[in-house]
């Protein structure tokens, strides 16, 4: 068969045009990718599961509503193995993918410190949940926090314990990682400001197998209240059990881990009556209730801090992309920091120049295994 010149030209034109037509179609269908570093293995793997569920609920809602900038949002995850080297490796793998526009980082301060240098090199917004106050003061403008930092938790724990419960002699039990040390410093500074004192400073290594020495030291210290900053649920539960077994009935006001779902389940009655500061409390706002409805429907579990901050982070990120009209890193970061009055599950986001979005905490109490909202304390300074 002879091919005419006209047919050949049409054929060539079609061949040349096809990739660009197909490419244009593909571009229209392309997703916006958000990277997420989370614990799939290691001692915080359960927390990682909750974090992923929170992010997925937000993602489903955004995508159902038509996505952002005409595109669907996609989550790309990497396991941090609940270790610092694991977090660095996980973030590096995600950062190597040029089409990822922003990241959800770890909830643990120590891991956030570990990835901070790579975050700076990558130059894209990283939303994180670590509460060490130093993290947004490192001179690393890409780190943006979605939980209230420990200067707030320290102030709320101190003010509630001293002013509401009337206790001025504190035993502070804390892990010796970045989170625990940051919390201890914040709480002891807040106590000093309002005239209370630290009777006993009890630091311990994470994944401790026995708290008898800690409990006996508290018992003999003359403390009239316990304050705590624990990193892992099983440490909270083991400490709570041994505290009660060895006859210590002091009131206890702890950081969020003292009232999170995992610790409450493991410790059972040993944590009854314990107060905690929690960035998430189901009865704290209509948005928190709405999130709880979606979360429980999806997971059959009660939501807690591990899931609420990732839910909010995806929400704020998508909102910022819409306002910026772009996923370009500088514009996206500026839009996130310009967020004012965004009502999330954790509270109202008003970012300051350092990248801290939340400035208050809820006080909650463990009432026979149920976490009951007491009040929200917001700071403006």
């Amino acid at each position, binding site marked *: 068969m002879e091919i005419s010149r006209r047919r050949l030209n049409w054929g060539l034109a079609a061949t040349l045009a096809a990739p660009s037509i197909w490419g244009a179609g593909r571009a229209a269908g392309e997703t916006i990718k958000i990277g997420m570093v989370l614990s*799939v*293995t290691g*001692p915080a*793997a359960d927390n990682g599961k909750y974090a992923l569920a929170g992010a997925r609920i937000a993602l489903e809602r955004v995508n159902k509503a038509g996505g952002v900038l005409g595109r669907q949002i996609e989550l790309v995850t990497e396991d941090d193995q609940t270790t610092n080297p694991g977090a660095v490796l996980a973030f590096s793998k995600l950062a190597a993918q040029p089409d990822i526009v922003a990241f959800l980082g770890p909830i643990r301060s120590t891991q956030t410190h570990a990835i901070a240098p790579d975050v700076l090199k990558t130059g894209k917004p990283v939303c994180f949940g670590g509460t060490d106050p130093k993290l947004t003061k490192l001179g690393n403008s890409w780190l943006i926090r979605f939980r209230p930092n420990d200067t707030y938790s320290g102030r709320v724990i101190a003010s509630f314990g001293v002013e509401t419960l009337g206790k001025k002699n504190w035993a502070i039990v804390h892990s010796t990682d970045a989170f625990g040390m940051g919390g201890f410093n914040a709480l002891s500074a807040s106590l000093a400001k309002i005239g209370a004192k630290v009777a006993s400073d009890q630091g311990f290594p994470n994944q401790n197998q*026995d708290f008898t020495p800690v409990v*006996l030291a508290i018992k003999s210290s003359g403390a009239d209240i316990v304050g705590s900053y624990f990193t892992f649920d*099983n440490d909270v539960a083991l400490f709570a059990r041994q505290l009660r*077994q060895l006859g210590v009935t002091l009131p206890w006001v702890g950081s969020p881990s003292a009232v999170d779902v995992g610790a409450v*389940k493991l410790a*059972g009655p040993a944590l009854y009556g314990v107060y905690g500061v929690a960035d998430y409390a189901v009865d704290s706002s209509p948005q928190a209730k709405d999130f709880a409805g979606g979360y429980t429907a999806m997971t059959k579990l009660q939501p807690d801090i591990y899931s609420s901050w990732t839910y909010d982070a995806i929400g704020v990120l998508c909102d910022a992309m819409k306002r910026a009209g772009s996923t370009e890193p500088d514009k996206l970061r500026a839009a996130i920091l310009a967020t004012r009055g965004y009502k999330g599950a954790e509270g109202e986001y008003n970012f300051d120049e350092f990248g801290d979005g939340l400035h208050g905490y809820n006080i909650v109490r463990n009432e026979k295994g149920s976490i009951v909202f007491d009040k929200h304390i917001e700071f403006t300074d």
Partner: protein
Amino acid sequence: MDFFLQLLFTGVGIGAVYALVALGFVLIFRATNVVNFAQGEFSMVAAYLMVVFAVDLGLPYWVAFLISIAGMALLGAAFNLLVYYPLRNRGFLPVLISTIGASIFLGNTTLALYGPQPQVLAGWLDTPGFQLGPIYLDSQYLVIVTVTLALVLFQYWLFEHTLLGKKLQATSQDKEMAALLGVPVALMIMFTFVYSAVLGGIAGILVAPVLFVSIQMGSAIALKAFAATIIGGFGDVAGAIIGGFAIGIVETLGAAYISVPFKDAFAFVVLIAFLALRPQGIFGERVAEKA
């Protein structure tokens, strides 16, 4: 004094767990000259089996215990056939790496099958503890110490007063000579893996009500148990037991009287001191003699 006695009781309880896991290390080392780095995972797997049978399926505690121990015996046999036996003539290092691989496999398989949430397992006794004067005795620690001592006595009887024990000892001392004398060496090694898995499993089931059931529980115990075997003298049964109790007591007293943040370091300071001053451990033979 009350303070000291309370700490001593806790140290002995924790030390009993290290001793049980250390026994498993020693038995396998004696039979195969290899350190089994999955010994801690045996404890973790057994604890999860208990959760499945006693909590999820609601079987009576003792029935769940017997099924879990039977499961551990099967796991020990499978471990021997799949992890040790194919590499038995390839020297020390390939087998050691194989046990590390098996340890990761067991941890991640359990994670995939059961999920990451730590689980609660009830104690063996209905009462959580007893007050003896100023000292609180956690009932589970009492069970741990009692069962450990019973198993030590059982093991003494097994090794010193039964033909099976003599065959196991002969295998551990000189496999070639034992084979020439008609001892079924492969079967003895199989039995050693089964028995070690059962020992590790009992340790896991015993400690689970205290430390909760989690994927990491085995590795945390195994690290200290490994230190205990070195302090006691690698390959020596009595040394492993004494090393286990010593580590438990030293770390508890060290945490209370010196520093809680350095609690884990005390065990390893003792370990380093032994490696520097008495590398053969308390009861162990000199490496040169073994070679």
